[in-house]
């Protein structure tokens, strides 16, 4: 078997990314408007889930705060779009999300597991109601109308750039001390600490990095709504979907989230048009199947996995056949008889 060096893998990953980028760049030119707008959603989830996996995958901290950062970005863009340039707005969106993430991280990142997940979710609610309260008491109304929005092409290119950046950052971070520290925290936090990793700093930095992407994506996507109110942009479903996509794709892998984001978007769209009720059910089913039979996610699928399933299946069918034909029962009887005979010997 061919074994690649780390450098070769890096080059391979970058080439694959380049190919994806080229494809996504060319898409609006030949595809219909509908397909390009679907691709936009797809790219949004690529950016969200890749950056989510970067922190949560390697450290195993399950964060449900994606929708909080997304919403912060969206609100920033709704408030500032008239006054600043497009790219500035996106940067500010990312910046505010980072600041909130640092505060939030400092407060809750010492908690693990369920507590962390629940608290990040609670934080989202807190921010939602804080924004509502702020709007009500300061501006006197909830909800903002965005009239001056950039061209569709600009939005597409921005989200594409964010998605590419998210994957590129994942590729690079894996090869740095910082990435290794994140992985070490996931494997055994105490040991990492003993070995001299400043876990607190690393965790907050990783969390902030994830938040930066979610904030930027939120700021870029907000203009698709025209009318923004807290309940739309702090929609927990965006956070859940990101987690699901990453889990199904494979948390620890580089290409899993990207692959799953594409599959998800296509699946969601076709199911929505054909069988609207089935979408959520199939999502749940997919997750259960993944957890049971493919814990590493879609990206961990190898030829051997299929072969393994095939052998398992054959084994099971053979067993069932023997059971149904009564062969198993007879065998049992024979064994019993033999045992009885032996007893008297």
């Amino acid at each position, binding site marked *: 078997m061919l074994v690649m060096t780390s450098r070769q893998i890096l080059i391979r990953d970058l080439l694959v990314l380049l190919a994806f980028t080229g494809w996504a760049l060319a898409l609006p030119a030949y595809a*219909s*408007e*509908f397909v390009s*707008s*679907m691709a936009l*959603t797809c790219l949004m989830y690529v950016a969200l889930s890749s950056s989510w996996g970067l922190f949560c995958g390697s450290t195993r901290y399950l964060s449900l705060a994606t929708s909080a950062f997304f919403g912060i970005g969206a609100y920033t863009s709704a408030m500032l779009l008239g006054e600043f340039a497009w790219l500035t707005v996106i940067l500010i969106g990312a910046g505010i999300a980072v600041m909130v993430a640092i505060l939030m991280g400092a407060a809750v990142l010492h908690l693990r597991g369920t507590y962390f997940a629940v608290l990040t979710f609670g934080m989202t609610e807190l921010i939602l*109601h804080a924004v*509502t309260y702020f709007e*009500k008491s300061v501006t*006197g*109304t*909830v*909800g903002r*109308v965005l*009239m001056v929005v950039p061209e569709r092409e600009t939005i597409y290119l921005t989200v594409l750039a964010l998605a590419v950046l998210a994957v590129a950052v994942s590729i690079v971070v894996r090869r740095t001390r910082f990435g290794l520290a994140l992985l070490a925290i996931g494997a055994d936090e105490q040991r990492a600490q003993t070995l001299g990793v400043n876990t607190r700093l690393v965790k907050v930095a990783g969390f902030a990095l994830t938040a930066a992407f979610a904030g930027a994506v939120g700021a870029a*996507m907000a203009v*698709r*709504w*025209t*009318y923004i*109110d807290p*309940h*739309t942009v702090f929609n927990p479903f965006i956070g859940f979907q990101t987690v699901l996509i990453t889990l199904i794709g494979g948390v620890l892998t580089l290409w899993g989230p990207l692959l799953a984001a594409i599959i998800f978007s296509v699946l969601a769209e076709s199911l*929505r*048009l054909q069988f*609207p*009720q089935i*979408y*959520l059910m199939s999502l749940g089913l997919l997750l259960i199947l993944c957890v049971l039979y493919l814990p590493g996610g879609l990206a961990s699928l190898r030829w051997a996995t299929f072969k393994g399933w095939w052998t398992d299946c054959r084994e099971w069918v053979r067993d069932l056949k023997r059971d149904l034909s009564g062969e198993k029962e007879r065998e049992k009887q024979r064994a019993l008889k033999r045992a009885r005979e032996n007893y008297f010997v």
Partner: protein
Amino acid sequence: MAPAQVQQSKRTLIKGAAAVVGAATFAPQLMAQNAPVRIGYTMARTGPWTGGAQTSQEPNYLLWAEQQNAAGGLDVKGTRRKIELVSSDDQSNVETVVRTYEKLMGSDKVDLVLPPWGSGANFAVAPLANRYGYPFLAPTALSKKLVDLKLPYFFLLLQQPASMIGALVDLLKSQGVKTAAVIYVDDLFGLENYAALKEAVKGSGIRLVEEKSYPGSTQDLSPVLRAIKDKNPDAFIGFSYPPDTILASKQSKEVGFNPKFYYASVGTAFPLYTKVMTVAGAEGVMGMGSWNTKTSPGAKAYFDAHVASQKKEPDRWASGAAWAGLEILTNAVKSVGLDRKAIRDFVANNTHQTILGEIKFNGSENVGTPGTVGQWQKGEFEVVWPPARATAKLITKPKW
């Protein structure tokens, strides 16, 4: 064969050939005339908007297409063409709504579109409608801000907060109400209506003894209702959505809060309300509403057709607006065909006869029908204000 006969058959041949050429020339046009009119929309069939969308909006679209097709098709400037509805579920998701309307108007190039459910979704598609030049007659969008956008292709059929709340305050004034308590959901709908109320009670002699907002996802309103009960106002006003409308009604009953006038908003006009509260329990409850079967002969016909075809009753507020919008659209297409600019001009510049009465637009706003107040009386949601449109006399609410 005699020469004459040869001549004859030759002539027949030429005639036949001419007919074929003629047919070939006109056939595409004839075919186009018979091709169905494609009308696209998205509707919430799953997710939080489903209840409202499937009560007030989609049944009307289906009924309309069914009726028009039964009559041979939609009358396009004198030619009947079948309606083909191109619809999909939007999962109560604004992003999906935007994406799908972009597809319908940009790629599929459907002949006409019908609006999606709710103010939020309509906000999102309104600028799109303008860009692609598709007239939108929205039955379930309610916001002054939407009017302020001044989009030429966008028309709102529901009465806006100022006229709706103006009617309510006039009614309360006429009944000698001195004190009122208001609760409102803290989103655009609640806030705009609350602002309209503050404006309307100025100088009316009505004092607001309690003003409280609550988050839309609230599960318990009883503390607020208890506090209001202690202040014993003459009237209770709630700017609420169906779940909280029903929650507030149930909990008012529980805590024994019995004001003389009880007003709630979205959901009171739904058949669901009497189903949950029972006919006796709903007696005397007021809400936003604009019509019932007594409003006009057309309204009665519409109601009966709706029940017969969709196996459920329409609500007494936005359903009427949805149907009125479809009536206007039908007339526009009959007069000017499928040219969308012409349809827009027709809608904007005419006074329209509908089941709700005369509708006309000032910009995007319907200024033809006045704001109204409805009240449940013996299982029917009667229009009780303004007197000119009333279908029954106002009653004082009995105790829960």
